[in-house]
């Protein structure tokens, strides 16, 4: 977006005002995410910049909150739980979600939109309601305060994302490729693994990443269905903020920002690869 050479003065003024408004909004979006990074190196247990930090005095900076994170058993247990729960929940939701998406994108599927609406509802129903329902029901069947209970709950919350991303990948899917494989003598299984899977893989992986982050970031259901034994990183952060605020939370936040940059890059690369594979050129 650039100004034409014949732009009048008011047009120029409006143009630059508009750009500065946009810059401010982008600043609002990104500043809170960035500000936790320097604060996590604070030498004193405050949530703000000290004078030493502003003058770049090395004495104002410290790695002690990171040391605390890596040695504290509360946090280490939380990391382990988060990973275990997220990995198993992702496996369940990716498998079930991908298979269901393959069925949903067949033209023969009856009542498609109703079923799609039902399968996506865990994403729409407010978390507090899902959590309340699971709290009662899972304790009835002996699943509350177990890893399995939290995994199943997170798998249910993650499936909509897999269904959405995989069906989106299948929209551009060229079904003549399947017929071509069949005429060349491939069995249905062989066609599935050698033709369909490689083509939808980017969609499956980005769905899996969405499911992973859903579980990794989820706290309401863990608070209700789980207990201290199932504490995850967000659980630990939530109770940390409520009880005693320690900058260790900021160190964890910084590490989580790094994780989200990693995930964002992977999803973006996958999306481009998928578009290339399906012959949709980005414009």
């Amino acid at each position, binding site marked *: 977006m650039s100004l034409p050479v014949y732009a009048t003065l008011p047009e120029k003024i409006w143009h630059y005002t508009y750009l500065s408004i946009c810059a401010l909004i982008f600043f609002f979006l990104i500043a809170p995410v960035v500000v936790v990074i320097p604060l996590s190196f604070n030498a004193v247990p405050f949530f703000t910049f000290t004078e030493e930090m502003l003058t770049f005095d090395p004495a104002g900076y410290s790695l002690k909150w990171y040391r605390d994170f890596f040695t504290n058993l509360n946090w280490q247990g939380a990391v382990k739980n988060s990973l275990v729960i997220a990995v198993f929940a992702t496996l369940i939701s990716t498998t079930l979600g991908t298979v269901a998406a393959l069925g*949903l994108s067949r033209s023969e599927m009856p009542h498609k939109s109703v079923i799609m609406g039902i399968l996506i509802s865990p994403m729409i129903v*407010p978390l507090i*309601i899902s959590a309340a329902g699971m709290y009662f029901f899972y304790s009835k069947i002996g699943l509350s305060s177990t890893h399995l209970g939290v995994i199943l709950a997170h798998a249910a919350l993650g499936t909509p994302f897999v269904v959405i991303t995989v069906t989106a990948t299948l929209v551009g899917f060229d079904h003549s490729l399947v017929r071509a494989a069949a005429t060349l003598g491939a069995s249905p299984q062989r066609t599935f693994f050698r033709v369909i899977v490689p083509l939808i893989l980017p969609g499956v992986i980005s769905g899996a990443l969405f499911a992973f982050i859903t579980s990794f970031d989820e706290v309401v259901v863990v608070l209700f269905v789980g207990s201290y034994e199932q504490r995850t990183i967000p659980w630990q952060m939530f109770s940390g903020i409520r009880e005693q605020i320690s900058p260790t939370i900021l160190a964890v936040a910084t590490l989580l920002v790094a994780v989200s940059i990693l995930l964002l890059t992977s999803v973006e690369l996958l999306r481009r690869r998928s578009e290339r594979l399906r012959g949709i050129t980005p414009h």
Partner: protein
Amino acid sequence: MSQVLVTADGVPLKTSLARAQRRSKLKAVALVAPLFVFIAVAFFVPIIDMLFRSVENQLVGEVLHRSMPLLQKWDERSGELPEEEVFAALALDFREAKENKSGGRVGRRLNYEKPGFSGLFRKSARGADRMEAPYREAFIALDEKWGDIENWRVIKRESAPYTISYYLAALDMGYADDGGIARNSEDGRIYLKLFWRTLWMSLFITFLCLILAYPISYLLSVLPTAKSNLLIILVLLPFWTSLLVRTTAWIALLQQEGVINDLVVWFGLVDDDNRLAMIHNRTGTIIAMVHILLPFMVLPLYSVMKTIPPSYMRAAKSLGATPFTAFVRVYMPNTVAGIGAGAILVFILAIGYYITPALVGGQSGTLISNFIAFHMQNSLNWGLAAALGAILLGVVLVLYFLYDKIVGIDNMKLG
């Protein structure tokens, strides 16, 4: 002349086709079935179970299983206390309740209807052992509340297996002395106010998100791809960052000794003693939630705006429209689908938000979700929590239905 077409093995073509279609339909259903069953069991059954809890009311009838059937014969409008046989059965019930310690639970349940029952039931469970006939006099001697017809009306009403009293409480209503339904007194009205506050704040947050998202989505859609890909990272990074990280960041920024207050004091805009209170109140909740939900507005707006050809605006201008008229009359109507999609999505997410208001909301910034959590974990009034949840769920489902009508669930895009 009417010759039936047959396949190579002699089956009529029509039959063969129908069979093949049925088979492929079954195959499609079989692929969807595992997920459908999983979602039904792990997600829908728990929610239905919770909804059931909002009307379920077996407890009183179960624990007082001897006296309650007899009480049904009592006419609450007669102006007289129940018969002696009811009191006698009640004494037996209390003896049993003392043994399996269920008297306290019934007392707590009835306490929701009328304060005072909790203590009355504890006292009666302890005293029932020593009681002798005539039981009516013994009960009234133990506590004169047993001689109050009003209390008996409450017990009889709540001995029914289903109740609407949780929903009445959730709507700030209750039973009046004459047994009819009436609104609570002015200072007893909490939840309607809270529902209004939740709706009002969600609407305001949605509006702010729209105001902030519109300019940047437009910028992203008109910039060349290389530049817009770079800028969209600024939207996607917060989107992918943990909710708790962003809430923590806002606590660091907004608190009394936080970054923004330090800056404002440093610039001399306010003095050190009057630091701004921007957190643990409504302002904090609104700022943090707008930040968290903004990407959900930008992404649908951006994807709609990208499809609007720039020639529309040029055409309008060449026909004599000022840039402003062209924008309002030509460009904006084309973005309505994106506005609708983003607004409903943000509103649905805002109305059920729990974590952020719980951490930065304080007293004035809490939403209905926080009260549901409070009744689940602290007051243990699960029926009321379920009723509040059911009402919230109803609102969200209506919005979800609208979203489906406007955008179509199939068109939901991510990332």
